[in-house]
């Protein structure tokens, strides 16, 4: 190795702290981009691969009983790939602790012979499915958290109050089922005979799972084929009660994960930008330290190109190490996170893969971006003349401009503090780069915390439509007076409202197509709904055919506006309704909800006084006490033989909802912390360089009596001052980033922009982190500075 390359190696290896910081800086960007890219690619590959391997249905039709002949004729309709009928029964699983879990049973002949929504072994390494005999049940593996072992007997309470005992024959993997933890409902499979024993039917199907022959991801195409099936069935005398089409051709969490991947990708590249700032900062200071060496090399014959190549190689070395560390690390952690996501979203993962696309991106971040970032500072320094490089003797001015006016004495700040503050502004470019890194890190952190707050606010907004403490749904209509009387007899109940909820269709103006919707009918004077209106007004007592539509219906029927009259098909009867208002609710709502007056709807359906659900307000605010009231209600309604399909507590609902957004927030928080680490590294690097540059000044200060503490204080205060400056600027920058993040996440995940929320929490937490980072980042340089002896510092070259 020639001497010039030995110098490059010595620069790399000789200053291990600087090399470590530099490599860590590049790793931050390379790792972030790699992790996000790997995670996105793995999620997209494995989630849909597992989902599509189950030959998923794109639509489910809930229908009046269908026999095999009818099913065969529906199979012949153009565009239908596979159509499979299943009967189902919804019941409640009685747990040992007295709790009840909603459980849905599908009747299937042979778990291994399904053509649509097929099942797989719960453990991917198994090759065979468990068999299913009479009075046995298979549970989807996401219900394992309920704690049942194979061979356990499950007590199932049917809607008529009878209890059936089923033996758990095993767990299966049903990738087309929404996981128990999210849905709050377990999915089970029994054979047709057992289903009949449980009150279902073995000869007919009540649910049709439809898979289209082609264009499975085309919502309109799937809708048209489904409508054709429904039309044929209804022409033959059947009734379609309800059609469910949700994100056809993709896993149910596809949209959410796409949003997450995009947002994380943006944060990942922001980390790269931070890392590039830091590379510039470090290179600027490295070059400033090396300017004398460059002058000497030039004096003994090196030309600019040779020196450029030497420093380019040095940066390439940093990139090589960062690349070597980041690629396996991001692949490994991508796999770990994927496993977590797969467990949460219920899909099997594929083989470990290193994606060339990710590696190329990481190579670009590790090699090209640091080089691009360093190019200008390198070029500026290697162009320095020998005279400029060698003329810096003594203390020099080191960034201090000649003051035009004599500075005034400050009565507030001590002289060492004033030294710290003046030192801060001596290297303005370095300060700008350090601040940029910290400001961006702070802005991202505060924005993510604001997103956290926005999710919270969104949940509160959604809750405004479901304000009750307990929501009781019935399997059939009951007289309000009867069920409300039972419920109100339980101590702690403050008020009860009876609501109606029905499926229906909105018919297009030319009467050729129809879109599914759900009518929700609260009492006109309901206090349990506080809608967010974007146009028009809410329902008032006395309204007759008034209807309030929401943003989800508008997304499929954008032509609708306040004042329009629309035609609905409710229980096979067409009626006209006038739109009086438009509300907004975040989140995925399938089918879209429309609100009408209970009195008018029940009268129109000749069902005055009938309700399908009760919304209950308790006098308790403690969740445990509300849960106890829920259990009491369940027991009492069972005693009175009221067929309850579900009792849901507001707290349970909130938990299920927040579980879905928490993963996104935690991911973003990890990215925000990564940016904070990069920001801290930037500050540490700047403080180290500043201290190194001022070694002679420190020597002089020590020579004139400065103690260890004085020297440390000057360095620490400078670090704190930079940190506080960045904190202030970070808050300002966090506003547009929050706005973009809230909008992007809202549209990607909630199908509607979320309300901008700017909280104090993020600002205060970031202040604490900034102070801690500043102290940590300055402590080591401060300690090093205070350990220098006068002799050492004044001999420093």
């Amino acid at each position, binding site marked *: 190795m020639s001497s010039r390359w030995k*110098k490059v190696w*010595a620069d790399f290896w000789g200053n291990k702290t600087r090399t470590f910081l530099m490599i860590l800086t590049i790793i931050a960007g390379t790792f972030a981009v790699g992790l996000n890219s790997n995670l996105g690619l793995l999620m997209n590959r494995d989630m849909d691969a597992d989902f599509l391997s189950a030959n998923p249905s794109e639509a489910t039709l809930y229908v009046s009983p269908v026999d095999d002949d009818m099913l065969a004729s529906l199979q012949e309709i153009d565009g239908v790939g596979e159509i499979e009928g299943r009967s189902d029964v919804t019941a409640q699983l009685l747990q040992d602790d007295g709790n009840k879990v909603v459980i849905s049973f599908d009747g299937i002949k042979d778990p291994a012979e399904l053509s649509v929504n097929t099942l797989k072994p719960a453990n991917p390494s198994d090759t065979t499915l468990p068999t299913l005999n009479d009075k046995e049940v298979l549970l989807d593996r996401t219900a394992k958290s309920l704690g049942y072992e194979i061979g356990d007997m499950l007590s199932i309470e049917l809607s008529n109050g009878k209890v059936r005992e089923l033996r758990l024959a095993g767990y299966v993997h049903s990738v087309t089922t929404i996981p128990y933890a999210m849905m709050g409902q377990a999915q089970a499979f029994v054979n047709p005979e057992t289903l009949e024993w449980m009150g279902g039917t073995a000869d007919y199907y009540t649910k049709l799972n439809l898979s289209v022959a082609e264009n499975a991801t085309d919502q309109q195409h799937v809708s048209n084929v489904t409508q054709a099936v429904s039309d044929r069935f209804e022409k033959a005398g059947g009734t379609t009660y309800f059609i469910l089409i949700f994100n056809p051709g993709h896993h149910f969490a596809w949209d959410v994960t796409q949003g997450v991947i995009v947002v994380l990708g943006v944060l990942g590249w922001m980390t790269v930008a931070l890392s590039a700032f830091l590379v510039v900062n470090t290179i600027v200071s490295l070059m400033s330290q090396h300017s004398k060496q460059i002058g*000497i090399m*030039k*004096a*003994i*014959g090196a030309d600019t190109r040779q020196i450029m190549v030497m420093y380019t190689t040095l940066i390439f070395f940093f990139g090589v190490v960062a690349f070597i560390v980041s690629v396996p690390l991001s692949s490994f952690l991508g796999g770990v996170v994927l496993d977590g996501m797969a467990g949460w979203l219920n899909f099997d993962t594929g083989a470990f893969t290193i994606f060339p696309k990710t590696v190329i991106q990481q190579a670009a971040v590790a090699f090209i971006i640091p080089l691009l970032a360093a190019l200008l500072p390198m070029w500026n320094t290697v162009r320095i*003349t020998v005279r400029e490089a*060698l003329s810096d003797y003594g203390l020099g001015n080191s960034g201090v401009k000649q003051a035009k006016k004599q500075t005034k004495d400050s009565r507030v700040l001590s002289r060492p503090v004033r030294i710290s503050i003046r030192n801060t502004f001596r290297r303005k470019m370095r300060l700008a780069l350090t601040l940029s890194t910290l400001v961006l890190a702070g802005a991202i952190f505060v924005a993510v915390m604001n997103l956290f707050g926005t999710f919270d606010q969104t949940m509160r907004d959604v809750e405004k439509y479901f304000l009750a403490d307990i929501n009781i749904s019935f399997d059939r209509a009951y007289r309000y007076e009867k069920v409300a009387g039972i419920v109100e007899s339980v101590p702690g109940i403050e008020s009860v409202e009876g609501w109606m909820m029905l499926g229906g269709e909105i018919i297009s103006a030319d009467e050729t197509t129809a879109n599914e919707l759900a009518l929700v009918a609260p009492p006109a004077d309901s206090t349990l709904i506080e809608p967010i209106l974007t146009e028009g007004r809410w329902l008032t007592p006395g309204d007759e055919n008034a209807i309030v539509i929401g943003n989800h219906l508008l997304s499929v029927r954008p032509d609708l506006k306040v004042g329009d009259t629309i035609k609905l098909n409710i229980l096979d009867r067409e009626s006209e309704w006038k739109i009086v208002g438009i509300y907004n609710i975040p989140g995925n709502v399938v089918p879209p909800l429309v609100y009408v007056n209970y009195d008018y709807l029940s009268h129109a359906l000749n069902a005055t006084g009938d309700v399908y659900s009760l919304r209950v307000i308790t006098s308790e605010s403690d969740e445990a006490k509300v849960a106890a009231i829920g259990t009491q209600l369940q027991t009492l309604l069972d005693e009175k033989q009221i067929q309850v399909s579900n009792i849901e507590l507001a707290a349970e609902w909130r938990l299920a909802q927040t579980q879905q957004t928490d993963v996104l927030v935690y991911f973003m928080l990890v990215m925000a912390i990564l940016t904070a680490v990069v920001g801290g590294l930037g500050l540490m690097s700047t403080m180290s360089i500043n201290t190194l540059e001022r070694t002679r000044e420190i020597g002089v200060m020590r020579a004139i009596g400065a103690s260890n503490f004085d020297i440390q204080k000057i360095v620490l205060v400078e670090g704190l001052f930079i940190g506080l400056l960045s904190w202030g600027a970070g808050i300002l920058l966090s506003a547009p980033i929050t706005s973009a993040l809230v909008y992007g996440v809202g549209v990607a995940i909630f199908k509607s922009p979320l309300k901008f929320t700017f909280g104090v929490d993020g600002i205060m937490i970031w202040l604490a982190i900034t102070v801690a980072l500043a102290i940590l980042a300055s402590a080591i340089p401060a300690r090093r500075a205070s350990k220098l002896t006068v002799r050492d510092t004044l001999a420093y070259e």
Partner: protein
Amino acid sequence: MLTLPFTKNGKKPAESNGYPLISLRGVDKLYKTAVGDFPALVNVDLDIKAGEFVSVIGKSGSGKTTLLNMVTGIDRPSAGEVWVNETAVHELGENKMARWRGINLGIVFQFFQLLPMLSVIENIMLPMDFCKTFPKNERKDRALALLEQMELADHAYKLPTALSGGQQQRVAIARGLANDPPVIIADEPTGNLDSKTAERVFGLFNELVAQGKTIIIVTHDNEMAKRASRVALIADGEIVSDKPNGVKA
């Protein structure tokens, strides 16, 4: 007696042909300062023939280092011409200058300026690496030979910080000789050395001159300056005396 190893053409590095090896013509150098222009050199004319050993003396701030910087191309004249070994130094671009300087001049600094991260021998090999004046496989041998000449072969693989000031200065001289340049330029080469070590360094310079090298040194030590064959006295940017040694100014 110092014998230079591996000289490129086997003859004395610079043959006198009657023309000066170094020639400064009407050189002015003005520095702009906060209090106005400062004339560091004023209309300097200086010719130095091959094989001469010239001491430039003068008080601090008189323009000695500026004069050297004109010769080395480290600084450029505000007016006038600088010729070294038939090259118009004042016209060379910075990049060409570096390579030209590496081949034609050996520079020895007051503070030695050895690269701290390289060993002694690597410091000496570095100019050869940059200028490729010797084949790769000869560079190490040449560096070792130069160190032997400086009586520092035992320290070849030490870092410069492990050496005394005098030893570091001899390493710096060896580095100056690495590319076998015809001219050695030294700015206060004994400024940081004790008198005994300084004596030794001057002895080295005399031996190099005997080998045919042309040497210019800047010093403010009049006694040491007398060891050169010619002494130029500079004051306020002008050469006020330029005489062979032993001739009273």
